[in-house]
């Protein structure tokens, strides 16, 4: 058993070294502000931007917008992203790390709108204000655990969806025979997710206002392949529809693929959401008629601005809607 003893010795040395290290410093999260100020220098205003999905162009644009704004207003911005949009535990680690680094405010788009609440409570305890951008922290869970968010800065998904759907209805109306009622299909995102529900409601509101009707509606869970299957099935049952409203661009691409098989491309109005590159390509080719730009860069910039304001003692509106833009083939 000698080897076991030797091994434990190694472990024990390591444990002691860590323990000794841990006992030397006593951190007070959030002291970075006052601490540096007390030392005579100007108070350091460090802000953390914590986002998700580093490989998604949407969040890359958000980071860029935040960095430019930080440079403009002269604050130090610490950005940390996680690779997978679903890695909630890693993002929680990122929040803890930012608190331990002593940032003054946190700007965050949560990977898990429910799961992040428990970790953010620590920021609240340390009096570090939380600016929520893009994806809303679950309000019910936040209320239950007593988490207060300084502000929510996000796109108005309802208005965005309504805008793009209204544009689609307008296009359809132009080519519609007199006295005929427009009929459209709807491809929904993952049911129950806030963004998906808001977009669905926006679509329905616009369709109702135009006096059209939704012939059929299915969830394709944001997915291109699923959208293709769902569109195929819905088109078989409703061959007379004039438009397809898709809750994101990836599903719009699936709808286009389904229409290609039926030689309907260009004859049927297809709109999406998000303004991704592939959708812009499709619009150039005339396969798709419109999408929505959510301005992630502006979201990042507004997040930094809000953090600076609240650190400077200002107050914030509980919600700041970020304007969304309609993108048509003329824009691309």
């Amino acid at each position: 058993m000698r080897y076991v003893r030797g091994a434990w010795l190694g472990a024990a040395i390591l444990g002691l070294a860590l323990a000794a290290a841990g006992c030397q410093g006593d951190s007070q999260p959030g002291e970075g502000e006052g601490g540096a100020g007390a030392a005579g220098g100007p108070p350091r205003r460090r802000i953390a931007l914590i986002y998700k999905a580093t490989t998604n162009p949407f969040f890359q644009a958000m980071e860029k917008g935040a960095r430019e704004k930080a440079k403009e207003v002269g604050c130090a911005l610490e950005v940390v992203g996680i690779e997978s949009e679903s890695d909630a535990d890693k993002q929680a680690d990122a929040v803890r790390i930012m608190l331990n680094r002593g940032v003054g405010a946190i700007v965050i788009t949560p990977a898990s709108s429910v799961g992040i609440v428990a970790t953010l409570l620590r920021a609240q305890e340390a009096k570090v204000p939380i600016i929520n951008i893009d994806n809303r922290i679950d309000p019910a869970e936040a209320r239950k655990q007593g988490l207060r968010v300084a502000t929510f800065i996000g796109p108005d998904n309802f208005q965005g969806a309504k805008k793009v759907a209204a544009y689609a209805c307008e296009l359809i109306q132009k080519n519609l025979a007199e006295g005929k009622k427009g009929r459209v299909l709807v491809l929904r995102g993952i049911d129950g997710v806030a963004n998906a529900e808001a977009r669905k409601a926006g679509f329905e509101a616009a369709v109702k206002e135009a006096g059209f009707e939704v012939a059929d509606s299915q969830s394709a869970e944001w997915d291109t392949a699923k959208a293709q299957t769902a569109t195929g099935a819905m088109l078989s049952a409703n061959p007379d529809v004039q438009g397809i409203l898709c809750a994101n661009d990836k599903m719009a691409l699936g709808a286009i693929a389904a229409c290609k098989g039926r030689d309907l491309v260009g004859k049927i109005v297809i709109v999406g959401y998000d303004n991704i590159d592939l959708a812009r390509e499709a619009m150039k080719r005339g396969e798709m008629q419109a999408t929505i730009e959510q301005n992630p860069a502006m979201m990042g910039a507004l997040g930094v601005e809000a953090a600076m304001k609240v650190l400077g003692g200002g107050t914030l509106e509980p919600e700041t809607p970020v304007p969304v833009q309609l993108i048509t083939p003329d824009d691309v």
Partner: protein
Amino acid sequence: MPDLRSRITASRALVLAVVAVALVAFFAVCSAVEEGTGEWPRFLYRENVIDIAGSCAINLILAVGLTFVIIGGGIDLSVGRLIALANVMLVVLTNATGSLAVGVAGGLAAGVAAGLFNGALCVRFRIPSFIVTLGSMMIARGLALVAAGGLTIACQARAPVVLQRFLPIAVSVAAMLVGHVLLARTVFGRHVFAVGGNAETARLCGIRVGRVRVLTFVLSGLCAGLAGLVFWVRGGTGDPLAGDGLELYAIAAVIVGGTSLAGGRGSIVGTFLGALIMGVLAYGLLFMRVPTPWQWVIIGSVVIVTVLLDRLKRTE
């Protein structure tokens, strides 16, 4: 022969301990340089050290269970996804019955049942464990999503704030200690080594090889269940995508810790140090805000270099 083996294992632990301390020191220096104030580096603040331990917990627990499977000559790829299954079962049952005890029991039972499933299939039908656990990894992913209804679900019960920080650490330390005693001090532990070293010889010696193998998978499943519990403690949710890809981190921790993939050799102490290295590295890179693509490159390099260091030292 025992003498030679003892020296190898002890020297490995020393190499690993040095690597781990070096990593901590490296990040501390980086942190101090970045701060530039000449004060105690934030990386070594007490709060941060506690958070490092917390962030290592899930991987350490998984790796302890995996050590048994790998020493026994198998592999378990399902553990990452079993975290999600156990975690979701815990929350769903807690919400349905209003009793956290039922939820915790259900979560752990899900892990144990999955381990039993893995082990029984491997042993009874002689299917390689790589294949069985590859399949059960996918099944677990699907079942977790079904049970959660495709969404991250909130839990009615919540761990008190103090426990959120310290329970994961306590559970991981307990798993490690129990695992060490079980592996190094019991008859069962010796049987695991024997089965992994040479199953035929073990059988001729009267060891019930199949039973020992199944038990290693059950232990691995139980550990995944515990990790699912820890995930709930830390985040308070039932997340059907929890633990995605963590099996690879856990396998890396076990291998860095000196356990042979061929079976028959290894130790929990090594696994602990391996998990610590992996954990400190992942946390430290996030702390220094290294871009995620480079995090992968660095973590992969450290895995290889650590094993290489040990190899060089051994041939000396």
